[in-house]
């Protein structure tokens, strides 16, 4: 993936750039907002990672300007601004995701992958499939092979989110944000509890487990290799 990182702190920039390069992405770094805006306009990128507090042009204005200019490249805000309303203002400016520093690297990798693959895999179909598991978004039904599975609304949302990101790792906080609308870290194991219930419902009989735990990162749904 070709990623433009707009970050003024060289240490953070190098940490993020090297880490993502290790993941196989191609990274370019812009050290201020004005340069970042120029680069974002001139080249085609798969993803922009933008800091909010930047010299010369702040991140929020940068993203707003890009969206006004009809640049649709996905944007991930990577910022220390985690105050009340900061996330909402960031998303309202046109960003696709918002990650507050400090972050675990696995979290960043997961979110980058989720954003980067979106355009190609944005299928308009309403039926999601992973192996013999089938989820109908319109009919709100789930089948595994020939067996229909009854899910509670939250379990349905959880499975749908996992299946939309089939093959990718989704982190606990991505699930909390997107499935539960929780923008804070709960102190009980909500996600684990619901995942284990979902697994139990999906894996009746001796069908193989499709939801895989990615150690230190999160979960991934895919056919067992």
């Amino acid at each position, binding site marked *: 993936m070709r990623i433009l990182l707009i970050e003024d702190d060289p240490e953070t920039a190098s940490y993020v750039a090297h880490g993502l390069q290790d993941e196989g992405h191609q990274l370019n770094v812009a050290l201020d907002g004005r340069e970042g805006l120029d680069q974002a306009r001139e080249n085609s990128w798969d993803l922009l990672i933008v800091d909010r507090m930047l010299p010369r042009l702040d991140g929020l204005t940068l993203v707003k300007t890009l969206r006004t200019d009809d640049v649709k490249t996905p944007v991930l805000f990577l910022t220390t601004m985690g105050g*009340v309303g900061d996330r909402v203002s960031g998303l309202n400016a046109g960003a696709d995701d918002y990650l507050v520093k400090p972050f675990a690297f696995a979290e960043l990798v997961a979110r980058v992958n989720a954003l980067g693959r979106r355009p190609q895999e944005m299928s308009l179909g309403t039926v999601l499939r992973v192996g013999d598991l089938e989820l109908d978004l319109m009919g709100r039904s789930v089948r595994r092979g020939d067996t229909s599975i009854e899910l509670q609304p939250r379990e349905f949302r959880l499975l749908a989110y996992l299946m939309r990101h089939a093959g990718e790792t989704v982190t606990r906080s991505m699930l909390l944000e997107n499935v539960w609308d929780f923008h804070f870290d709960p*102190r009980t194991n909500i996600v684990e509890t619901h995942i284990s219930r979902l697994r139990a419902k999906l894996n009746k009989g001796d069908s193989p487990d499709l939801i895989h735990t990615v150690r230190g990162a999160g979960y991934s749904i895919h056919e067992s290799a």
Partner: protein
Amino acid sequence: MSLPRIFRTSIFRLTLLYAGLFSLSVLVLFVAIFWFGSGYVESQIDQSVTNELAEIQSRAAFGDLDHYREVIDSYVERAPSGVYYVLENSGGEVLAGNMQGVEPVVGIQSFALKVPSERHPGEVLGVRGRGIQVAGDGYLYVGLDNFELIKMREMIAGFFLWGFAATISLAIMGGFLMSQSLLRSVEAISSTSREIVAGDLSQRVPVRGVGDEFDHLASSLNTMLDRITGLMESMRQVSSDIAHDLRTPLSRLRQRLELARRREDSVEQLHEALDRSIEDVDAILDTFTALLRIAQIEAHTNATGLSHVDLSEVLNEMGEVYQSVAEERGQRLEVSIPDGLIVLGDRELLPQLFSNLTENAIRHCPAGAKIRIDALRVLDGIVVSVSDNGSGIPPEFRTKVFQRFFQMDSSRTNDGTGLGLSLVAAIASLHHASIELLDNHPGLRVKLKFPLLNAI
């Protein structure tokens, strides 16, 4: 040398101004009375003189000058003191009378008497009278001395002099006393402020208890000082708590890193040590994040950014989310919420508030416990309770638990940061909601009361 302080106060200047204005009005009054009084006495004199002239004329029966002379002579003989007559012929020669000759001018005229008066020794009196033509070209003048007028004027002047003196001294005395007492009140406030500036925040402005403006000012200032002291105290508390609370994990982290550095471990062991160190750092960062969030919410006290939130929906969601978590721990979570409870709130913070309370109940209660989330519409608000039948919180801890880093279990063995309820309190306060910890007999009942929509 500068003037004494009292002369430099605006109150004193105002008093002087008022005293001046008052004196001026007394003066105007004096002039008016003096003027009108004199006028009155003069018109009385004129009237008497006119009467006297008419009487003389009728006595003389409008005869010749000799007639007049006889009449005047008899009048002069029995004239009371202060009445003056003079009769002159056409040559200006005095024929009869008891005063010097005058210019034969018809009408009112006044002179200074040349003869000293017996009534008022030592002073030259004036005389005021009227002259008329009699018996062809003779001239008769009848006048009264101005003794009465002088007496009256002296009286008025004396009266006003005393009055004026009294007015001035009363005004100055009153002004002095008034400014003294006001100055004392102001001085009390400024000396208190000076002491506070010097570092003694425990000082308070004395309230005299008379309920005047100065008392109001003093008590508002004291309330402000209480608030500031409270904030300072909590700041001090928080910073020392942060230092204290973070020292333990930081020193543990340091030990671990040092140990890993010293020992000649395998790469795997080093990785493990690093992983655990990262976990430690994450825990410390969590504490900072929570602190920051509380501070941000507390700073966010104006209700901007709040919108109508369906509290029923939020609470039902809480029930749905935590039902399975509770079940997994062998607990029961029951939710009973009427529909359509709307509050002015923050769509992200309200779930955090109730999630915190529900998780507290789940985490602190043993298996088999029953946890309830109830909501109730009351006359003046919406009451939400999160209750459990666990071990509860002893009454003496019920306010302390809202303090940052306070944990009932002083060994801090559980995984809490000690910030959960501080965050709850901050979010509640942002929503103008009151929060109470009650005994659930047994267990804890956290009662939140949100104001009605139109009451904010």
